[in-house]
């Protein structure tokens, strides 16, 4: 087994989940209505839970403990896609990011549920069931808001156009694509992207929104190789403020 390739895969997934989970948790207490606040916070917590599972696998492969991996690395060591680190804007921004990301995440973990790496396979089966609800939530909310009134439609449309190039950045290749595919650990970003295109097309055809030809857009790459926006270091600093006060504290 190619340990470096496997670690690379786990790191990028864990970092995506941790960073987006943290971003989405920033809505806690500020959500548009109480019920949605709770639902969105709950899904953010799931995301952090997924990242914990990934960091734990890394720990078993010889990396440091999950808390250290999550809180005590610098931004240039993070492998998350740029989409996840963008600061929150209006709610439709976060909602659209949540849907586009989790479409890809569901496809990814459905695929990993038959990974040749057994420990990942077992966890993927759990994660994909949680993503069922996440995508159900994203689809219903986006569809409803896209058709509610001209203002909500315009907001959803604008956030879709803004977010698509960043969403394509999810599928940026890692240096180990071929190794992972050959070892049947992961079927590769291109395969996930093809299925994502189909899913996204199917879904937006059912809404009042116009989906541009996504194959013609220029993806926002960089995240997977550690080239981040300035927003990521700020997020990590805030996230690790407590642990840095006393890294050995027992929780």
């Amino acid at each position, binding site marked *: 087994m190619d340990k470096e390739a496997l670690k690379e895969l786990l790191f990028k997934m864990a970092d995506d989940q941790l960073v987006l989970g943290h971003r989405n948790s920033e809505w806690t207490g500020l959500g548009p209505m109480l019920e949605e606040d709770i639902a969105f916070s709950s899904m953010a917590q799931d995301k952090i839970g997924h990242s914990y599972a990934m960091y734990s696998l890394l720990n078993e492969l010889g990396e440091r403990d999950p808390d250290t991996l999550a809180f005590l690395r610098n931004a240039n060591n993070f492998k998350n896609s740029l989409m996840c680190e963008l600061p929150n804007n209006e709610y439709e921004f976060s909602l659209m990011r949540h849907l586009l990301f989790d479409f890809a995440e569901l496809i990814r973990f459905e695929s990993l549920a038959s990974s040749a790496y057994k420990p990942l396979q077992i966890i993927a089966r759990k994660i994909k069931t949680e993503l*069922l609800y996440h995508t159900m939530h994203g689809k219903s*909310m986006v569809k409803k808001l896209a058709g509610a009134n001209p203002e909500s439609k315009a907001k959803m449309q604008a956030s879709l156009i803004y977010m698509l190039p960043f969403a394509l950045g999810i599928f940026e290749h890692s240096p180990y694509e071929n190794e992972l595919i050959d070892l049947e650990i992961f079927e590769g970003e291109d395969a996930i992207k093809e299925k994502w295109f189909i899913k996204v097309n199917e879904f937006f055809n059912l809404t009042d929104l116009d989906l541009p030809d996504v194959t013609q857009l220029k993806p926002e790459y960089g995240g997977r190789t550690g080239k981040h926006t300035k927003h990521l270091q700020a997020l990590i600093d805030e996230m690790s403020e407590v642990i840095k006060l006393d890294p050995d504290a027992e929780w």
Partner: protein
Amino acid sequence: MKSLDPRVNRLPSDDSSVAKPKEPLDQLATFEVFLKKSEKRLMEHVGIVHGADEEIAFLFAKEQFSRRYTCIEMWIVKSSNTFATGYTEADVSVYDSIKHIDGVANEEYCIFHLLRRGKQHVFAGTVEAESVEHALSKAKKSLGDTQVFNIWVVKSSDLHKWSQKELWETLPDKGFRDALAYRAGDKLKDYLNERKNG
């Protein structure tokens, strides 16, 4: 009864046998949420959520009411499609005042009972009837041999059901959502002891 005192306006109406639609609250429409904790438990009412429709209400209800504890099925019905009788006191059952009505058995209705004051309504069974009043009358015959403080009647076709068990599959792994998991009390006690002794 017209009064400026809210306590007076909350008094039950004189005739508890008449089932009236529940009043909607503010903002978006409200929806009643029922859930089943396990195969052995009855479907029971757990609360109310706002929503644009039943689908959105379910999304909200799922995290509102089945975030921590087990759940295998959830039902959602619009509050205005939930018909509630008045409440009775002590050893009087609502069924005592339900009158017999004849009718055609052309639609299914679900009956929910409040068996103890301060507890939740639980699913009691279904009856075939042509109206809410008729459903109550039929329920008195088939389900009315227990003491019931309040009855809700819902047309089965108004109930939206989610029974995809996968949705709740990982709940047992989420013990961390319960404050108890952090044993904060124990840690505080240890800390205070340490301070006292050291």
